[in-house]
C-alpha cells in the first residue's frame, strides 16, 4: 500500500494501490450512479414485500399485491374461451351443412378447423390434407368412408378400426396368407386391377373372373368401391399404399401399383384412426369436418 497522494498532472488523489510502480488514480463512481444504485436497493426491498419473490421450502412468498403470472394467464385463457364460446355454441347448435351455408360461420369454422387439423390430424394426413403413404389424401375426391360432410364428421367422431363401438370396422380377407388364392392367381388379378384402374377393364384377362368371384363383392363390379365397408375404389389412379404424387415414369408407376396390389391381396394392411370424440369437443369436431369437407374434395 503506497501512501495516498495528489497526482500533479491531473490534480486528483491516488487510491494508494500500486502495481509495479504503477499507481491508480481515484476515480469515484459518478454521483448519479450511486443514487440510482441506492434507489434500486430501496426499490428491491419494496419489491420483496409487494411481489412474489422469496422461494420457500414448499412454495414462495406471494407478496402483498398477490400478483401471479399464472393467474393472469388463466384469466386470459378464460376470456378467450368466453369469446370463442359465442361462435362454438352457434356451430354446435347447427348441423354441419348449415354451418357451411352461413358464410360467417364457414369462415370461422375453416379457420378454427385448420388450427385443430394442424394440431391433431396433420401428423398423419399432412398439412392441408396432402396425405402420406398409407394415410389418405383428404384434399382429393376419393373417400374410403364417404365424402359428404355428415360422413366425414361421423368418421372423425368415431374413427376407424379402434376400440370405440361406433368406429368403422371392416377387414379384407388375407387371400394369399390364408390360401384362398394362389400366388399365380394373385398376380393375374393384379394385372386385371391395373386395367380396371385405367377404366378399361380387359374381360379376356384370366384375372377378370377371379376379380368377379372374390373382389367385386366389396370393391364393386367395375371397381367402384363401397364406402359403407371402407372398400376403396379401384377404378382410379388414387392408391393408398403407393407414393402419393405419382410422378414416376409410367412403367415404374405401373410396377409399383402391381406390387402394392399383390401385397395387399396377399396380406392386407389396414389403417386405423382414433375416435376423436373421445378427445375433442363437438364444436371442434364440427369445425374439423367443415375444414376437411372444404379442402376441395368434399361431396
Amino acid at each position, binding site marked *: 500500500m503506497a501512501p495516498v497522494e495528489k497526482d500533479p*498532472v*491531473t*490534480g*486528483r488523489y491516488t487510491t494508494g494501490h500500486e502495481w509495479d510502480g504503477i499507481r491508480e488514480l481515484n476515480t469515484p463512481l459518478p454521483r448519479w450512479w450511486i443514487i440510482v444504485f441506492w434507489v434500486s436497493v430501496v426499490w428491491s426491498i419494496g419489491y420483496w414485500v409487494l411481489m412474489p419473490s422469496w422461494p420457500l421450502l414448499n412454495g414462495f412468498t406471494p407478496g402483498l399485491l398477490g400478483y401471479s403470472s399464472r393467474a393472469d394467464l388463466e384469466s386470459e385463457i378464460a376470456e378467450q374461451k368466453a369469446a370463442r364460446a359465442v361462435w362454438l355454441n352457434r356451430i354446435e347448435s347447427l348441423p354441419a351443412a348449415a354451418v*357451411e351455408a352461413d*358464410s360467417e360461420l*364457414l*369462415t370461422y369454422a*375453416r379457420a378454427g378447423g385448420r388450427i385443430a387439423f394442424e394440431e391433431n390430424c396433420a401428423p398423419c394426413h*399432412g*398439412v*392441408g*390434407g*396432402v396425405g402420406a403413404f398409407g394415410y389418405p*389424401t383428404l*384434399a*382429393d*375426391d*376419393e373417400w374410403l368412408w364417404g365424402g359428404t360432410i355428415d360422413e366425414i364428421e361421423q368418421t372423425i367422431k368415431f374413427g376407424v378400426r379402434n376400440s370405440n363401438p361406433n368406429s368403422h370396422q371392416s377387414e379384407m380377407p388375407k387371400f394369399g396368407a390364408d390360401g384362398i388364392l394362389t400366388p399365380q392367381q394373385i398376380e393375374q388379378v393384379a394385372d386385371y386391377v391395373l386395367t380396371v384402374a385405367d377404366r378399361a377393364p380387359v374381360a379376356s384377362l384370366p384375372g377378370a373372373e377371379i376379380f368377379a368371384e372374390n373382389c367385386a363383392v366389396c370393391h364393386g363390379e367395375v371397381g367402384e368401391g363401397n364406402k359403407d365397408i371402407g372398400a376403396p*375404389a379401384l377404378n*382410379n*389412379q*388414387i392408391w393408398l399404399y403407393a407414393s402419393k*404424387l*405419382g*410422378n*414416376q*415414369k*409410367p412403367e415404374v*408407376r405401373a410396377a409399383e401399383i402391381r406390387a402394392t396390389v399383390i401385397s395387399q391381396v396377399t396380406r392386407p394392411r389396414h389403417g386405423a384412426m382414433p375416435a376423436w370424440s373421445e378427445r375433442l369437443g363437438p364444436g371442434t369436431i364440427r369445425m374439423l369436418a367443415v375444414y376437411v369437407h*372444404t379442402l*376441395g*374434395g368434399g361431396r
Partner: protein
Amino acid sequence: MTEPEGSSLYARSETVQSRSVRGRFRSWKFLAMVVLLPWWYLAPFLRWNRGPGAPDQAILIDMGGRRAYFLGLEIWPQEVYYLTGILVVAAIVLFLVSALYGRVWCGFLCWQTVYTDLFVQIERMLIGDRTRRLALDRAPWNLDKLARKGAVHLLWMLIAGSCGIAFALYFGNAPTMLPAILTGRESVAIYGAIAVVGGFCYLLAGFAREQVCLYMCPYSRFQAAMFDEHSLIVGYEAWRGERRGRWRKGQTFEGRGHCIDCGVCVAVCPTGIDIRNGSQLGCIGCGLCIDGCDAMMDRVGLPRGLITWDSIASQAARARGETPRHRLVRPRTLVYGAILALSLGVIGWSLIARTTTEMTILHERALLYVRLSDGSIRNGYVVKVQNKVRSERIFDLQIEGLEGVRMSVIGGGPPLKVASDSVGSFTVFVTAAAGIATGRRVSLAFVLRDLKDGSETRAESLFVGPDR
C-alpha cells in the same frame, strides 16, 4: 474540481445563454414560429368529409383501423411505400435547399430549433436577457431564484406536454380525443406516447439544445456535404474584418479591419459558436449573428454586411473588389432538381394510377396440386380482394389463359361479395382435365370484374401439374 488544461479528453459543456437581438433574420424566425407552431397544434383539427362511416379528420393515422388518411388520400398498410416516397422527397428537398440556401431547415424550421427558441423566449420573459440569466445561474439559491426557475420549468413542462398531446392527436379523432386526454379517460398507451414525446421535448428544448445539433443530429453532419462555393451560407467577411481589434468612438479604421471584436455575434448565437472561425458544424444558419453585427455596424457607422448570408464565391469576389454574381443554376442543383422531379413524378404517377381494387393470388403451397379420381388435376388458390371503396361491392371472377378449366369457390360464387373498405378472402379451386398441365407450369390469370361499373383487375398466377 478544476483540471489543468489538456488533462482531459472530455470537454465540459457550457450552457449557452444567447442574447436576444432584433433584425431581419430574427423576424424570419418569429414568422416561422408563428406559422409552424399553430400548424402543428391545429392541423389535427382540420376536417375532411369522406362520407358516412369514415373518419372526417383531414390528417389521421388510425393505428387501430390500419389506415392513414391525408386529405383525400387513404393509405393502407401495404402502401407504406408512400411514406418512403415522402421521406425520399423530403431528403432531396433538404439537399437542394442546402445547396442553394444553406441550412434553412436547421435555422428556421426544425422542431428542435423552433421549440428551443420558444423555450428561450420564456426564459427571457421570466428571468431576463443573457446577462440576467447568467447572473441568476451564478446566484445562490434563494426564494427569487426558486420562483423564477420554477416558473420557467413549469411553463416549459406545460409547453412540452402540449407538444406531446398535439403529437397524439394525429392518431385519433382530435375533437373528442383532446377532452378525453385532459380528463384522464384515454388509454395508458396514449399517455405513454404523450409522456415520451413531451418528455423529450422538455429535455431536448430545455436542456440539450445545441447539443442535439452538435452530437445527435445526423442532418447537421451531412448538410455541409451539399454545400459548394455558391451555396448561401452565413459567413464572416474576414478580408474586411481582419485585423480585428477593440475600437473606441472617434478612432480611425485606417490600417485595421472593421471587426471591433465586440463579441455580439458570439453572444447572440443559439449554439454558442464564433462565426468568425469560418463555416462550421455548429452553425445552424439562423443568421442571428448577422442581425447582431449589422446593428453594431450601424452604431459604429460602418456599412452593414461584415457577417453576411452569402456564398463563398461572392465573398471572394468582393474581397477582390469585383461585383459578385450569384449562381443558382449549377451542376449540383441541376442534379438535385432532376432527382427531385423524378421522385415527385414517380410518386405522383403512382398516386394517379392508384386503384381502388387490388387482387392478390396466393397459390396453395401445402399441396401444389391434387390428382382427382378421374385423373384431372386441381390447384387451390387464396384470392384476396382489397376493396378500398366505402361501399360493398360485388365482383365476377373469371380465369384466362387456360382453356377447359372448372372453377369453384368455397362458400359459393362467383359473384363474390366484398364488404366496404376491407379485404375479402376466397378459397378458389381450379380443376383442369388430365394432361392439360402435365409436366409443366402454366401461367393463368384471374380477372376480377366489378359487376356495377365493369372495371377489371387482373392478377397472374400459375397452374401446377404433375411431372408425368
